[in-house]
């Protein structure tokens, strides 16, 4: 009985202290410092218990901070600062950024001749591309250039010199599993996949398919299923 009472007092005291600490904590409004230089941040932050940011790897790091509820990015940055990289734009005429083949300014992460290099860079975390680009961004090029010889892809090679028929090799299953998004860039409807996989000989589904298939079927009204299974 006494232990129970002590426990309740301890919990209530902790909760009270916690609320007190939180109420005494006020986030600093940075709007007054928006014109300061980055190297001046440490004048206040040194010893304040806040780790410095906006360092050399901030391009990769900023996502976590910007997506926090109550984040204070807007104290210094306008929304155009985000959209100019993520959605294409250049109102502040940033001279360090290059133009894409569509005349859009690209973030600095896009190195020289990015059209040649992008397949290597896209492998470094395949989800990075989709943070800014819709899937049809890829098919816009790949859908039109698939017959060009320089666009060879490891898992499907031309059947002969100059041939427009492609032969599959055994690598394709492993390649597909590693980077399925790249398949979507040329085959948005997966028509080539369905040709073989709809026969039922090769099951393409993940291991937990039995658990998750019902939800997919319901949300797509069976449209996705009917691409292979005519009875759905």
């Amino acid at each position, binding site marked *: 009985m006494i232990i129970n009472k002590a426990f309740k007092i301890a919990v209530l005291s902790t909760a009270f202290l916690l609320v007190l600490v*939180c109420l005494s904590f006020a986030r600093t409004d940075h709007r007054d410092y928006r014109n300061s230089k980055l*190297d001046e941040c440490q004048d206040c932050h040194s010893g304040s*218990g*806040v*780790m*410095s940011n906006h*360092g*050399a790897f901030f391009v990769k790091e900023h996502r*976590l901070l*910007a*997506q*926090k*509820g*109550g*984040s204070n990015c807007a104290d210094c940055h*306008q*929304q*155009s600062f*985000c*959209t100019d990289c993520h*959605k294409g*734009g*250049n*109102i502040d*005429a940033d*001279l*360090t950024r*290059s*133009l894409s083949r*569509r*005349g*859009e300014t690209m973030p600095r992460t896009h*190195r*020289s*001749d990015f*059209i*040649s290099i992008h*397949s*290597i860079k896209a*492998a*470094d*975390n*395949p989800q990075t591309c989709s943070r800014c680009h819709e899937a*049809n961004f890829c098919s816009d090029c790949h859908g*039109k250039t698939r017959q060009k010889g*320089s666009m060879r892809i490891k898992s499907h090679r031309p059947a002969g010199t100059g041939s427009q028929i492609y032969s599959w090799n055994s690598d394709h299953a492993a390649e*597909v*599993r*590693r980077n*399925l*998004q790249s398949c979507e860039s040329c085959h948005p409807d997966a028509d080539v996949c369905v040709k073989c996989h709809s026969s039922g000989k090769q099951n393409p589904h*993940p291991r937990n398919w039995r658990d998750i298939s019902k*939800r*997919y079927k319901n*949300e*797509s009204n069976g*449209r*996705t*299923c009917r*691409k292979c299974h005519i009875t759905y």
Partner: protein
Amino acid sequence: MRVKRLLVMLMALVLVPLVSHAADVKLFTSSTQMLWYQDLLSDEGKREVQEYLRVNVTKLDKEGKLNIYGYGRANKVLSSPSEDLQGRLYYLYVDYRDAFKEHLDLRAGRTYVNSAALSGTVDGLYADVKNLGPVGVTLFGGRHVIFDDKRDVGTRGDALTGMSVYLDTVKNTHVEVSYGRKYGDTDVTRESVGLDFSTTPHQMVNVYGRMKYDTFAETYNEMLFGAKMAPLKDLTLRGEYYRSYPTFDSVSIYSIFSVEKYEEKSITAEYEFSKNYRASVKYAKENFDSDADADVFEIGFVAKPIKDLTLNASYEKRSGYAGQLSGLRFYGEYKISKAAILAGMDYDDFRREISREGTAKKFWAGVNYEFSKLISAVLRVEDNVNFTYDNGYQGYVAVQINY
């Protein structure tokens, strides 16, 4: 028609002060740009004119809580007369900070919304219910605006909704749970739950993480755990583990396929020799499955040897699955009176798996000349020597007006 409507909306914003005695167009930015660039697909050089307009109407009320922000662009490809005038409205929203005491921030209109579960541009509403003791709640929803090929697209059935609950339990500790739903043509195409945490138990240590769970695929779409340390005043170290598992919209045929997870373990170090000299280094080990991996090294250096001169150099080396890359980048900036002169170069040596290989060079230079605080002119030119072009020239000239 749509572009005209866009421009009318932005121009109307400029007129708001005339009907509101206290209002003030605090910042009006216009950028008129003439671009020339190489379109690889059509195999031709293109010329294009773009007009950007950004308007911030502030002090609509006495306390300065009510503001309107707008940003848009109209463009016309001059070298293709058949192409119509196009345009994008990036955002146009009413911002009402501290709408109810210090507990409510509101944004209504076209705005960018951001959460661990879901992000995007919506025509709708964003609310941040804050300072409820240690708790805050954000809510957002609206039509999903998709930017595609210089326009904004999306049907009435495309939508994003979401919310997050965050808890600042003690100073510098943040825990947040978020939930988001994406609709495509009224079908639910994505549903995600995000969990974020970050704590700085000591001023030298920060531990953080994120998990994003896809409720359709019943798997973690992304997972990140990291720790940042500052053992010395000028040295910052970081270690991270990241894992992702690609998932697709429910209506996409790709949602039914089995995929492999991607894993990345990385360590970084940043050191500030003095206020004017900084260096950084990074190593990442990437795993695609048991048979495929890659190593990535990066090193960077920033120097300000004399006043008004900044030099940046970086080197990246990647080897392993998907290809090899060895790339050097250098650029510098020097300010002389009213002019800022920038120049740089990229040199990349790459080997894609089985297909293209070679070197790519990019040389660029630019100048920003400030005639007055109101008007400046910008010029950028670039030459590309690579697989496609012996000399691929592109660039732009711009007139900037900041009022």
